[in-house]
């Protein structure tokens, strides 16, 4: 059995009288330690799938298996525990707590986890050893996203979920962030999912899932993932 499995997952939203089907019978599988890129146009259901996988949203029907556990059937509190112990999230807009320094933002995550990593070491890993005591407002966008990644991986999660992590960054900085994510997946043997609307970066992944109209239309295994440095777009 695969490490992660989406089985006939449906998700409906009610917008007043109208029902919107965000996910319509979605199926895909991901193996442990894989770096996965999810591509597709906006509104295709990528983010919904990631939110469900991250324990931030409930399914309408279907099963979501993560490491042998069906998270679709978890109660609210169990879902929080799942987020707390198994998931690291990286957003497009960093979402750092403005009133905390970089290292404190990381500590915010590590203080609630059992198997967390040392915040200082993680900050070194993401290349921000010098900036630990800066507030978010004193950091550039790329640096802030590094802090966000550090905060996510410091929890030592099973899954690292990234929703458009380079969406707000320029080309060069975006590339550095993707490299950091790729390195993390390789070195730490972490399962990483990256959502992007930029299909050009797909070659960096072990697996590419294409979303369209609320379905995982195509799942492609990339036998020879390229290091991000070799990809141009």
């Amino acid at each position, binding site marked *: 059995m695969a490490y992660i499995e989406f089985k006939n997952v449906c998700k409906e939203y009610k917008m007043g009288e109208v029902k919107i089907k965000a996910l319509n019978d979605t199926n895909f599988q991901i193996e442990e330690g894989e770096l996965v890129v999810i591509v597709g146009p906006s509104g295709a259901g990528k983010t919904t799938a990631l*939110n469900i996988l*991250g324990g*931030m*949203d409930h399914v309408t029907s279907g099963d979501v298996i993560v490491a042998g556990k069906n998270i679709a059937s978890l109660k609210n*509190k169990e879902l*929080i*525990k*799942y*987020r*707390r*112990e198994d*998931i690291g*999230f990286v*957003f497009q*807009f960093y*979402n*750092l*707590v*403005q*009133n*905390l*320094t970089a290292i*404190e933002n990381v*500590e*915010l*995550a590590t*203080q*609630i*986890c059992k198997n967390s990593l040392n915040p200082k070491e993680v900050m070194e890993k993401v290349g921000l050893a010098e900036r630990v005591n800066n*507030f*978010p*407002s004193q950091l550039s966008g790329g640096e802030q996203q590094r802090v966000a990644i550090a*905060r996510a991986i410091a*929890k030592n999660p099973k899954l690292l979920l990234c929703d458009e992590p380079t969406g707000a960054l320029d080309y060069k900085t975006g590339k550095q962030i993707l490299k950091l994510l790729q390195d993390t997946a390789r070195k730490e043997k972490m399962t990483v999912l990256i959502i992007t609307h930029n299909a050009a970066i797909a070659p960096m992944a072990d697996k590419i899932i294409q979303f369209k109209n609320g379905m995982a239309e195509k799942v492609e295994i990339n036998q020879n993932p390229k290091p991000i440095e070799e990809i141009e777009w």
Partner: protein
Amino acid sequence: MKLKKALFKDTIKEITSTYKRFISIMLMSLLGVGFFAGLRATSPDMIDTIDQYFKQQNVYDIQIMSTTGLVQDDIEKIEQIDGVKDVYGSYSNDGLIEVEEKEYVSKILCLDEVNKPVLLEGNMPQNDNECVVEKKFFEQIDKHIGDTIEIKTQEYMDYLNEKELKIVGIVESPLYVSSERGTTKLGTGQIDSYIYVTKENIIPYIYTEIYVTIEGTDKYKTNSKQYEDKVDEVKGKIEDLSEEENLNWYIFDRNQNSGYSSFIQDTESIEKLSLVFPIVFFAIAVLVSLTSMTRMVEEERQEIGTLKALGYSGYQIASKYVIYASFACIIGGIIGMNIGFQLLPRMIWEMYTVMYQMPEINISYNHENAILGLGLIYICVVGATCYSIIKEVKETPATLLRPKAPKIGKRVLLERITPIWKRLNFSQKVTVRNIFRYKKRFLMTIIGIFGCTSLILAGFGLKDSISKLLPNQYEKVFNYEMQISLKTDLTEEQKEEWISEISKKEEVEKIAEIYMTSTTVEDNDVQIIVPKTNDELKDIINLIDYKTENNEIRLQEQDGVVITEKLAELLDVKEGDTIKIRDGNNKEKELKISMIAENYIYHYIYMSKENYEKIYDQDYSTNVILVKDKELNEKEQDDFSTEIISQNEVSTVILTSDIMGILDNTMNSLNYVVLILIVSAGLLAFVVLYNLSNVNISERVRELATIKVLGFYDKEVYSYVTRETILLTIIGIILGLVGGYFLNFYIIGTCEIDAMRFPKVIDPISYVYAVLITVVFTVIVNIATYFALKKIDMIGSLKSVE
């Protein structure tokens, strides 16, 4: 025009969608205006009540008395004076009423067209052999309407034609609005009650007093400047007349009537209070509107930008928020003033009616205070609103359409003090940082909680003081259970025999023989106590030095008297000073104060027998026996007093427990005040905290969504946000306890009645109550916060651009 209509509609929609915010501004305006208008209306309403009462009963403006008596000729002279409306010759005398061989002193007044009493029950006297009495009469004397009493007037045995009078009704006299009935040379010196007889029943042709009403005073309210001026003008002319003709007149106006003047004093202390209390509420109203309107403007930044881009002027955009705030404060203010006008004067009146016998209070809708209160709250709320909006509408549309940068993080001073900072754990550090991040909001939390705790503590403290009043007077200072007045016509031998018998009774622990009489010192009624020997009072009355608490005060043989604390304060005298008292013959005597003693109810002067004889030039004679019993229970005490009272030598017996019982009932009405303080304080705390919590959550929703995504449990999210609120609440409570301590003393100081000294104590349990009640209100708000936090939508909150 169309543009404005759209804006107006938008405002209405805004109110329905942000009703919580609207209601909190409304509630603060309600409390502010309610307290302001209600408290400020109370004093005028009370004056209005006594004014109406006095006008209806045709109460005098000027009273003239003379030691030599007044005659028809005097009336005619006064009638000639310019400005005088009517002149009435009147009679009053003190009389003894004997009921079952007990003596009571009554003021016998005559019915006239001036100072008309109000009939409460029964009929007015039609015949000479009828009389009406006051309600208090029945409390002491076991008689009913229809019964007959016999009156003995000592000095003028021929004062009344008919001395056997049938009681036909109960009246209330405007001359005696307070419980004070004045002093007399009869009995213990204290007048027990008044009765009215017909004018025809009175024999003498010499008047005891002349009452004058003045032309034009009915146009003005009593105690107003115009009224006083009118009275002074005529009073001056009467004084001139008295001097010219060498008449021995005492000329008084209403201010010398002790009931009236203490009533006026009380209205003045309420007025003082009305200047302080509303300030707290207005200040909080400003803070609440400031935070909530600032947040509202921030939330609608984009909309403001869009409207600006569409061509709306800054003025038009701001008008939406001004209309919103205006609605909230005008609606709240109008509801508040209506509640305030009705509720506060009535409640305060309820408290005061225990001391005054008067008709129901006239509640008026005081336009001046209504407009002033509403105007002030409008300035506070709308001013705060304008302050919040003005910066935003000045921005360009482009700036407005861009989101506002979040409040940046900053190091706080404490971080530089490394030894302390290092010791804090992660969440403590975050808390400290946040406290300094939202200074305005946190200052408000402290002020809100401070106001709440201090009002509650002041309320409970007031109750404590009042409940200590009786035990302090009748257990700590007075240590006797029974006060027995002896008949005046006993010979010294009869008296001595009776006293030696009573002191041998098995129920009796100890007795003190004293002489007791009344006098006035600068309009204050004072009881004089002269013990037979200087050690007589030991264990019966504790004379405790008010400053050193030393209870070994001794009466000095020669000069120097002991006076009670409140009297010393009213007269502004200290040990070593002299005071002037009036003796039974209205002559002034000087007394040197040797000591000031602790005392809580009424005023007393203690002096030695030698001193008394010297000052009064009279032989000493005991008239009252104070009895300390051997801890009898209620039943035994009753039996004992029944036994005593049945003895021929005894005039009256007053049980301390009876006095305490009567006063205790009246004190209970003060619970209203405590209740009103607690309810308003609670509302205050609730509105402030609820408002702050809402603003806090809406401003930090992104941060909170983030920590939820990180996997914080609901409880952890809750404590992440409320940890600082709790810390600030604790600070607020501590400050509030200190503030309440002083507020309590301020209230007591302002409200204290002349004849009483409220003990300045707050029970430890009151501090506990103040803290607990504040905590309960905080907890209620925190529960609401908990659910609001639970409802935060992570995905929605994190989606938008920052």
